[in-house]
């Protein structure tokens, strides 16, 4: 039974990665082979990346006689990454899966259902483990370390064992999230808060590792003490691999297997009550109020915004750029324009720093605009609701205008606010910018945000999949990245041409900014006109019918 369930879960996972979906043929052998090759390429890529990024640190640990610390740090990093990547998958696929009740109605023990779901999660974590711990082994050997047969064997075992710990952690936190949100009428704020906490914890964790590494030179005892106490399992892993120590290996194995078994036992014993629990939130009785009417485009835009603000996953995945935009400008205001200053030096040498600073900030804001991908998945987000718009007397132009407007009404004000913050930042530092650079500071990011909103709709209209089972899958699709890549070219290319050729020809940075702004505005206008064209209408008419 467990074998059948595991097979089904893996096939669903494979189909998801190979782009196959419900109602279509299962992934072909070719598609599966491509997926395996891509997986191997990703792992090899991570190996090289780790070697490039962590090589020096690894060499320093080896020379300092604390080689085990390298494996311990990588293992901690893996746990953080794993938790961030699989936490919400665990919540959705383990505790809130739509087929839980169907499976429970069949003669299948709940423990087998849970095992199959945790098995899939383990497989995902195993992939992460293979890339990170495997990469650690590669980096270790490549930077003067030696791994004997025993160490290689232990490393292989650790690659298999650490995902057990990660799976246990994801399931535990996933259950907690599911438990907390089940008793709430509006789950979105708490889910978004948890997303942001997780994201913040990731950055904090990375920053903390950095601090700990710095502290290692001044106060090594403090760090080592942590590894002797609450981080002991990671020390065991490090020592087991670096020293080929089988006793430490057994301790680490116990630290993974025992908590996993306990969590599995508890969750499996209470699986039925967990997945069949109903919300205890009291339902409010509707009392009629005066309704307010809107135009068609306004109603459609409000509808799209409501969808955005009611999905924590949509907000987190597609709206992170808004946070970056304002966060980046706030940091510049508080901490100073360290990023910009570096770029100013590189771009202008000892040129007009005052003007350059604002233009470069405009370019930075424009590039960050690409991270916001609200419109890029907005048509895919319709999916099973597409029939509503298709059966209504609305033109494609109205629907598509609402799609890019719902992106721009959020990204536009965020862009203006960030420009204001950057302007204040430059003024408080005694820089007096000229009118042209101020115009670029405000207009270029606005045009770039509009570009992102429009190109997202155009791309989604022509290449978007319309059969995503839920909004989360749509927001995690490649569609959300493409407009960002196009924007990178559109914004980055004029800058690169200026640095390589036009700067020396005497074209000022302000003028380059104005030319880029006009270029982006022209592209915006062309895309806007296209959305109202017969070609867009024709495409809309057949959307979702394939």
């Amino acid at each position, binding site marked *: 039974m467990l074998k059948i369930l595991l097979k089904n879960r893996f096939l669903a996972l494979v189909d998801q990665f190979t782009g196959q979906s419900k109602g279509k043929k299962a992934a072909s052998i070719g598609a599966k082979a491509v997926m395996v090759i891509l997986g191997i390429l990703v792992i090899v890529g991570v190996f090289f990346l780790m070697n490039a990024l962590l090589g020096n640190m690894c060499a320093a640990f080896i020379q300092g006689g604390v080689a085990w610390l390298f494996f311990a740090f990588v293992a901690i990093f893996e746990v953080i990454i794993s938790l961030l990547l699989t936490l919400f998958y665990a919540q959705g696929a383990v505790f809130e899966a739509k087929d839980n009740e169907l499976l429970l109605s069949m003669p299948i023990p709940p423990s087998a259902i849970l095992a199959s779901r945790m098995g899939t999660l383990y497989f995902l974590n195993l992939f992460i483990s293979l890339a990170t711990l495997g990469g650690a082994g590669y980096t270790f050997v490549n930077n003067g370390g030696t791994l004997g047969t025993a160490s290689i064997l232990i490393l292989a075992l650790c690659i298999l064992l650490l995902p057990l710990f990660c799976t246990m952690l994801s399931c535990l936190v996933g259950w907690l999230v599911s438990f907390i949100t089940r008793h709430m009428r509006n789950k979105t704020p708490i889910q978004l808060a948890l997303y942001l906490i997780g994201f913040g914890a990731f950055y904090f964790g990375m920053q903390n590792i950095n601090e700990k590494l710095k502290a290692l030179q001044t106060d090594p005892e403090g760090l080592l003490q942590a590894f002797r106490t609450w981080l002991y399992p990671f020390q065991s892993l490090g020592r087991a691999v670096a020293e080929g120590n089988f006793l430490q290996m057994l301790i680490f194995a116990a630290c993974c297997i025992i908590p996993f078994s306990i969590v599995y036992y508890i969750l499996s014993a209470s699986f039925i009550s967990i997945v069949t629990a109903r*919300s205890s939130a009291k*339902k*409010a*009785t*509707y*009392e*009629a109020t*005066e*309704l*307010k*009417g*809107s*135009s*068609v485009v*306004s*109603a*459609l835009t*409000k*509808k799209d915004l*409501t*969808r955005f603000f*009611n*999905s924590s996953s949509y907000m987190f995945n597609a709206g992170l750029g808004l946070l970056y935009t304002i966060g980046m400008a706030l940091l510049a205001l508080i901490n100073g324009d360290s990023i910009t200053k570096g770029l100013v030096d590189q771009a202008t040498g000892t040129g007009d720093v005052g003007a350059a600073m604002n233009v470069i900030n405009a370019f930075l804001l424009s590039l960050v605009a690409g991270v916001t991908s609200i419109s890029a998945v907005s048509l895919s987000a319709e999916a*099973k*609701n597409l*029939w*509503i718009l*298709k*059966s*209504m*007397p*609305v*033109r494609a132009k109205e629907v598509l205008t609402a799609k890019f407007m719902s992106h721009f009404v959020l990204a536009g004000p965020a862009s203006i606010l960030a420009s204001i913050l950057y302007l204040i930042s430059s003024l408080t530092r005694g820089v007096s910018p000229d009118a042209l650079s101020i115009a670029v500071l405000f207009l270029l990011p606005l045009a770039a945000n509009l570009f992102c909103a429009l190109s997202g709709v155009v791309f989604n209209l022509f290449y978007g999949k319309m059969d995503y089972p839920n909004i989360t899958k749509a927001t995690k699709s490649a569609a959300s990245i493409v407009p960002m890549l196009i924007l990178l070219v559109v914004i980055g290319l004029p800058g690169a041409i200026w640095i390589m050729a036009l700067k020396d020809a005497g074209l000022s940075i302000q003028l380059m900014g104005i030319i880029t702004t006009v270029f982006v505005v022209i592209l915006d206008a062309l895309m806007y006109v296209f959305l109202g064209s017969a070609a867009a209408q024709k495409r809309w*008419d*057949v959307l979702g*019918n394939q």
Partner: protein
Amino acid sequence: MLQINHYTKQYSANGPKAVDDLSLHIRPGEIYGFLGHNGAGKTTTIKACCGILDFTEGEILINGMSIKKQPLACKKIMAYIPDNPDLYEFMSGIRYLNFVGDVYGVPTDVREKHIAEYAADMGITDALGEKVASYSHGMKQKLAIVSALMHEPKLLIMDEPFVGLDPKAAFILKQFMRKYCDNGGAIFFSTHVLDVAEKLCDKIAIIKGGKLLADGDIETVKGDDSLEEVFLELVDDIKVEDEAAQAGEKHA
């Protein structure tokens, strides 16, 4: 009100015809039932009538206007209720209805009146403040029905409208359908419930494998038999098989 002329639908150029040369005429005041097995082509036809699905050959006219050439004008005077109403789950019921009112340009006082009346009939008034995600299948169906009636359409196209409705709501819907058509509206709906079709419909069409087997006044189609007997004979050849068996026995 709804005229389907030689409608043919092929999903792929070399594929089989999902619906083949179908012609039907639904007049104002008529409740027209569309019967057939699963996969017979009912939903494909209904979606084409609503302008959701393109078609290969033929013509579909709504109040004399082509759904292909004047889709917006056609959609303004009709409403569609699908078999599985996937509504906007992120909206509350009232917000969904207000959204529909905005799109169809229904004046706010009229939509308030309609919402109050139809939601009360369907028994969903109290739940209008809740998100659609919390609704049961039946409640979503009821909300879809209320939203379809917001703009007073002349033609109602419904795909299995009774699925998921409780007995009271089904009774109210049947009453409403009759009253709606008596006031000049037209209804074209698919159903598997032959009993409902027999009691409610003025005319029926029976489709099998994309081809029309029978259509016309319910009394003409069923004659002295029950609709169930006629349907099974036409669609499943059950009676024909029995007769053949009897003939075989006599011969032996």
